[in-house]
């Protein structure tokens, strides 16, 4: 009988030790990336709220965010979004087309697309992070 877990990480640790496979890892990563994106959404709305102070306040906010560090964090954000989006599409396809038997193959297909997309992202975003007038 499955026992209800009380500790914060216990649920996830037990799930991983019971079934240490791509299905569990992708489930865990989907949870973690999802929570990061929720926090990002709040920050995004907060930053956009500077527009209430008018064009100059908003532009000053954006200018302050143009640093090498924030551009590198932006690449991390794209990675988090890309993983959550591609794995989410895989989950939806598995659920809607009853493809549970193929879920691992579909996960690796999603990860191949992820890697290709991240290579493109690095090519586009990395020069910006180190551009002299960011």
């Amino acid at each position, binding site marked *: 009988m499955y026992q209800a*877990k009380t500790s914060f990480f216990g649920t996830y640790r037990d799930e991983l030790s019971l079934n240490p496979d791509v299905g569990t890892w992708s489930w865990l990563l989907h949870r973690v990336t999802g929570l990061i994106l929720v926090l990002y959404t709040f920050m995004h709305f907060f930053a956009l709220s500077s527009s209430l102070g008018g064009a100059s306040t908003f532009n000053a906010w954006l200018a302050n965010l143009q640093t090498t560090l924030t551009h590198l964090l932006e690449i991390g954000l794209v990675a988090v979004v890309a993983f959550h989006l591609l794995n989410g599409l895989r989950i939806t396809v598995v659920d809607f087309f009853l493809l549970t038997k193929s879920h691992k193959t579909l996960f690796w297909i999603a990860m191949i697309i992820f890697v290709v997309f991240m290579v493109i992202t690095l090519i586009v975003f990395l020069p910006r992070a180190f551009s002299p007038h960011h």
Partner: protein
Amino acid sequence: MNGKTGKGSAYGWLFQRITGLFLAFFLILHTQVLHFAKEWRIDFNVVTQRLDSTGWVIFYAIFVPALLFHAFNGVWQVVHDYRPSLGTARAVKTLFWVLGLAISAWGYYLIATFSKGA
């Protein structure tokens, strides 16, 4: 190992997927336009010019509530992993609905601010 959450849980599952599909499309477009397109420098004018079009206003008017539903329903799934009691579940759900609707309203206010600024 699913708790006794009744049919609300199945709707949550379905809407999580439907909003997810919408968000996949919206987010790709949003990121493409703002970060991958050649003109990547963003300032107040760039945003207000885009939000001068009714099409973009409708786009964000759907994007914002879909995003907040997906976000809070997703966090609710995480809470659900810990098998909350019925009382806790009800309190958390209520809190998430209030926050989701309030932040959506705030998002609409921001869309209106940018839309008026053009």
